[in-house]
């Protein structure tokens, strides 16, 4: 199972095994990682699962789609160049070892 590491705004880290095909958001929420709120459950409707993708993975993860891009513009924490909504990033072997920082404000 591909691994994904979450870094909290205070620097605390947790690494989880993701189910292949589960999103970075789902993996966090189901395991109770704080700071990923994800109220809409992954419908790309709430912008409360905002993360900053580690530079090393930015290319592999790719750019947000148009809808996600508009959502990120209104996110509670101002976006950065590698901002993504974690519900839109699906885990796969390709992303094994992914590191994301959780945006400090989600709602």
């Amino acid at each position, binding site marked *: 199972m591909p691994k994904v590491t979450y870094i909290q705004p205070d620097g605390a880290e947790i690494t989880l095994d993701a189910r292949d095909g589960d999103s970075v958001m789902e993996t966090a929420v*189901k*395991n*109770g990682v704080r700071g990923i709120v994800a109220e809409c459950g992954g*419908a790309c409707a*709430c912008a409360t699962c905002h993360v900053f993708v580690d530079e090393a993975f930015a290319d592999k993860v790719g750019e947000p789609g148009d809808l996600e891009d508009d959502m990120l*513009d*209104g996110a509670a924490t101002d976006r950065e160049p590698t901002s993504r909504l974690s519900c839109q990033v699906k885990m796969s072997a390709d992303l094994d070892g992914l590191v994301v920082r959780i945006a400090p404000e989600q709602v």
Partner: protein
Amino acid sequence: MTDVLIVGAGQAGMQIAVSLRDGGFDGRIELVGEEPHGPYQRPPLSKAFLHGAADIESLELRAPAFYVDNKIVVVPDEKVLKVDLSGDRGLATTDTGREIHFDKMALATGSTPRRLPIEGAELDGVLYLRGIADALELKKRWDAAASVVVIGGGFIGLEVAAGARMDGKQVTVLEAMDRLIARAVSPETSEFYRAAHERRGTSVRLGATITRLVGEGGKVTGVELEGGEIIPADIVMVGIGVIARGELADQLGLETVNGAIVVNEFAETSDPRVVAAGDAVLLPHPLGGDAQVRLESVQNAVDQAKTAAKTLAGVREPYRAVPWFWSDQGDLKLQIAGLSTGYDQTVVRGTPDDESFSVLYYRDGRLIACDSVNAVGDYMAVRKALGSGSTIPADQAANLETPLKTLVVE
């Protein structure tokens, strides 16, 4: 140590438990739910789940180990029948005969679909949609069904209609009122949805009066309208609203209105030992003016549960979160922010026929809500503005040259 019993293991019930632990609560937490599943997401049931894009495991709100790690006792498939608050501690009795002692209780009992009170409603193939069991019934019949009649032009009915149409079925939506989603959106948004569903090949019949459902061999085959016309149906999906589950509240003599449990801004019921949150609740909201409102949404379940958890832990923090809501109907993404209750003016931004527009709602000149269809930027701007107590001048809001977020003023 305080023991908390949470009745109802849906989104609100689960969130109360999680928020209690997040806040450092160290008493016993037991979460009892009637359904044979742990807490799960309902919204995908009318969307991705119906088309096989989501399995039951993917609906889980938390992995089973999460509850164990956080010492939250989740008891599915058990119904609390009776609650006694007359002693020093509360006592609940379930349908298995089990007794649960507690100090404080949270009611997160949710709602149940309103049943169709007409002849033929008991026929096989007449379906409702609230839980996984309902969705599985619908799914079982889905592939074989050539024609679907949806009774009720609200969110759930229109979501199912959109899915059925995408899967190539003959779809008819029957709405008793003169417009769709009349309870939640403005006439402009209603008319957009009527036209948009029609453009996709769904027949929308407004002002429809249904006389009975007809069937053969116990199975539904059609819906009869006043005047005798029969619309063929392999599936009749009924989405005519929900009724708050206030049975336990009524039994306890708590204040209710039509079954909805009345709470204050701290999610307290009329008994200080009992809080309530979610669909079953009638609440005051600063954006709703003087009216008490029922908010049937994930956002309300989550945010009100957070307030309820604080209250249980002795922290007084009123519920002020800006309501928001979404409905995905095929390729149409509707997002609603705020509460349009009591609006006296609307501004339409964009052209509905382009399938990307917003309707902004004003009361006494101040922005109170918006409906955005495929217009995420507008929605986010309004949500942020309402969250910070700001507004967007009505006389500028229609100007598409200027992004809404740049028009926000105090």
